[in-house]
């Protein structure tokens, strides 16, 4: 048992956790014909349930998972696993129908009903069911109320509300002005932009994968891997001092993590060129600034001429640059994560003089 727990603790380290999430996404999409079977769905939910039930026998696991405010996130894990599986399954079934010349199942089985009495009746039943679930949940689980607010006593760890923990996790890799202001703003703008940059007229109103491969892959990566899995990581696996703790690990407040993160400027000027850091910030950071300018402005143009030529032709310049610009912003998070894990890179551009760090 100890060995298994140790293995799971090791596998959930942020690098591996994120890597495994990406591998899982690739597998789900690549092997979707296999994932679509009922057996896999039951096995997935059953496996998750067994993991959580067996896990609660462990004191540390129980402490963090049964914390009343964390229970909804356990629910989120199950619901998300189910709905990802379900939508992949429906998409695969529909793709088979479309390939065979029938339309999507949603078109064949219209679920149009009369508002009265059918829809109102369904809504009433749903209303009652939701109320019952909420009442039972509230009877068995008390909402916690902690000590009165005390500005002089900071708890460790101090966490944001759980739905912002993905953003708080980004603070490990980015400065607050990016992780807390610019990137969340871009998420909202990006979501609103989706229907206006997605020119694919197919797959409107029914599950499908074959007709919208790129869109669905990018969305699953952004929503499930980047947003939801980082929330799970931030809720269950981040403890005192925002250190990482495995699910079966005791939250030791004295745990030390070696942090030897180095700026790009130091890599270039001190380690590669052997001179000291130049005193002028512009010269000091010129390589980082060029790198960022290349990523933001030159890369979309290069991609338009090369890899994404077909997309550029299909979307036209304005749509293409908005879509690819937003996509590259989304990718900047995994890029920065990899740079941190592989090279201990702290900042690409570090102009502390103006609080401008990337």
């Amino acid at each position, binding site marked *: 048992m100890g060995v298994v727990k140790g293995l799971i603790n090791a596998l959930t380290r942020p690098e591996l956790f994120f890597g495994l999430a990406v591998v899982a996404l690739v597998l789900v999409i690549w092997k979707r014909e296999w994932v679509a079977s009922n057996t896999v769905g039951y096995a997935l939910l059953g496996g998750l349930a067994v993991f959580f039930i067996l896990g609660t026998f462990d004191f540390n696991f129980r402490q963090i998972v049964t914390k009343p405010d964390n229970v909804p996130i356990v629910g*989120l894990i199950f*619901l998300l696993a189910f709905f990802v599986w379900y939508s992949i399954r429906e998409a695969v079934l529909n793709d088979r129908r479309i390939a065979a010349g029938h339309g999507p199942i*949603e078109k064949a089985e219209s679920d149009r009903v009369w508002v009265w009495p059918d829809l109102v009746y369904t809504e009433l039943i749903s209303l009652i069911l939701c109320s019952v679930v909420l009442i039972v949940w509230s009877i068995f689980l008390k909402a916690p109320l902690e000590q009165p607010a005390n500005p002089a006593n900071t708890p460790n760890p101090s966490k944001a509300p759980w739905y912002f923990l993905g953003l708080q996790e980004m603070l490990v890799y980015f400065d607050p002005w990016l992780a*807390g*202001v610019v990137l969340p703003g871009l998420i909202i703008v990006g979501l609103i932009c989706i229907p206006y940059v*997605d020119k694919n007229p197919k797959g409107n109103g*029914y599950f499908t994968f074959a007709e919208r491969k790129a869109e669905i892959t990018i969305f699953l990566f952004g929503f499930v891997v980047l947003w*939801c899995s980082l929330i799970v990581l931030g809720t269950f696996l981040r403890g005192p001092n925002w250190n990482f703790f495995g699910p079966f690990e005791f939250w030791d407040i004295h745990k030390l993590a070696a942090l030897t993160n180095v700026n790009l400027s130091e890599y270039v000027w001190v380690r590669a060129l052997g001179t000291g850091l130049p005193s002028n910030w512009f010269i000091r950071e010129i390589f980082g600034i060029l790198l960022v300018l290349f990523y933001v402005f030159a890369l979309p143009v290069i991609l338009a001429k090369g890899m994404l030529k077909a997309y550029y032709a299909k979307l036209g310049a304005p749509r293409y640059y908005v879509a690819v610009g937003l996509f590259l912003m989304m990718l900047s998070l995994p890029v920065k994560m990899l740079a941190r894990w592989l090279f201990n890179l702290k900042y690409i551009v570090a102009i502390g003089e103006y609080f401008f760090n990337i």
Partner: protein
Amino acid sequence: MREMHRWGAHAMVITVWLHMFRVFMTGSYKPPREFNWSVGVIMLVLTLLLSFTGYLLPWDQLAIWAITVGSGMARATPFLGHEGPGASLLRLGDVPLIHAYDDARFALLGGSFVGEGALLRFYVLHCVGLPLVIGVLMAVHFWRVRKDGGISGPL
């Protein structure tokens, strides 16, 4: 009662995400429903803001520190936060225009820390301001669902 409010709030956020997931996976954001998708994204943000403002109101240790962490981001707003990039460029001679007592976080909290001003502000937002806005948008959302050919079905 307090429990139902708390768990209901958590469930609301999760439900809204799953709804967005379904709408994306069925491609129901595509024209003619693109306007309703935009309304939905704004309502998603309002849902998070409602939950965020409500988080402070129990006024316990969890509340005050979660809001301290969450609102602390605003101080790093470019140009408008006193620790944001570019803020130190906004000055008249020796007088900085953006400092801890007039920046974006101050506007959010009604103070330079989470105190009585923030409690009052969040209370009014949570109970009056945001519900009014989201109520109007909900009406628009349901109206467009009906006008644009039903919910997440083929046209």
